[in-house]
């Protein structure tokens, strides 16, 4: 199963090879070719999602490949904060607040282990690729209850 991420990486790698080839113009042509195809399929997906409506499209997003393709083309029916919250909760991260203003998605999660913030950021970034910046803040829970062993 391929994903848009893997396909993107593969294309980037091929283009990088062309760029360092003796004929750098080929890289330009290949990039335009990629754009041309991706945009054609994007236009098609836009028609399909428009015909389906938000509810049906949201159901299709249960399939990760469909969901990530819709994200590539900015066609996901849910807004960025909802998507980010859902994705984090799928990974058992407690989410307090998600906001999206001025191209920045700000996420407040419960303090976890050392890598929690970094992991949350990667998840949030993937769920809201249109955001220029993702900021994860860890908030202390209102009550701290330490377990005594």
């Amino acid at each position, binding site marked *: 199963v391929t994903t848009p991420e893997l396909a993107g990486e593969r294309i980037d790698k091929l283009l990088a090879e062309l760029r360092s080839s003796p004929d750098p113009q080929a890289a330009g042509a290949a*990039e335009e070719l990629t754009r041309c195809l991706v945009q054609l399929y994007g236009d098609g997906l836009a028609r399909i999602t428009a015909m389906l409506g938000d509810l049906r499209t949201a159901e299709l997003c249960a399939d990760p490949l469909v969901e990530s393709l819709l994200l590539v083309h900015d066609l996901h029916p849910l807004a960025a904060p909802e998507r980010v919250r859902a994705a984090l909760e799928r990974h058992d991260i407690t989410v307090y607040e998600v906001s999206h203003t001025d191209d920045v998605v700000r996420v407040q999660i419960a303090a976890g282990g050392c890598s929690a913030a970094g992991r949350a950021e990667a998840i949030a970034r993937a769920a809201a690729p249109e955001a220029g910046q993702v900021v994860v803040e860890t908030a202390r829970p209102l009550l701290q209850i330490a377990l005594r062993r």
Partner: protein
Amino acid sequence: VTGLRKYAQADRTRRCEICRTALAGEHRHLVALDERELRCVCRPCGMLFDPAGAGGGRLRSVPERYLSGGPIGDLDWDRLQIPVLPVFLFENSDLGRVVACYPSPNGVTESMLDLDEWTALRDRHPLLGLPVPDVEAIFVARAAAIEAYLVPIDVCFAVAGMVRLNWRGPDGGETVRRGMAELLADLRTKSRKAFTLKE
């Protein structure tokens, strides 16, 4: 922007229309003679299509020189019977003659030109005979006196675009007036004298 997303979005980088490399800020122009259009190109491609370059043919590089002659006397100028200033004149090699155009709110408009009078004026003002056909023009505007400059033809396109976009009211309005004044100031500093005057 990462992954496939960058290919899903329209490419907004300006690219050389010959070799497709990204253009950084300053670039050169070619005149495409068949469409009478400008093409944005990088410096190396610009050189390729210089008059002495390897490209030649129906794509010509716009040179980068600016020259000035002395002012043109009102009486001299009036014999051309061109009603509007500023005006730019260039030789259209396909038509085999000099064309006079002025920027207007409707875009570039051609003005009638008496070619005999033009030839006579050119004999008295040698600057007018210097432009390379199709890619250079004589730009004539009135400040205190009537001033004439040899300019790259893309300058004329830029003026035409500025006038068309900003024209307000019957006389063009403040923005157009300021744009013209800035252009003239720019031409005065950029241009060097085409001839040293002999007494």
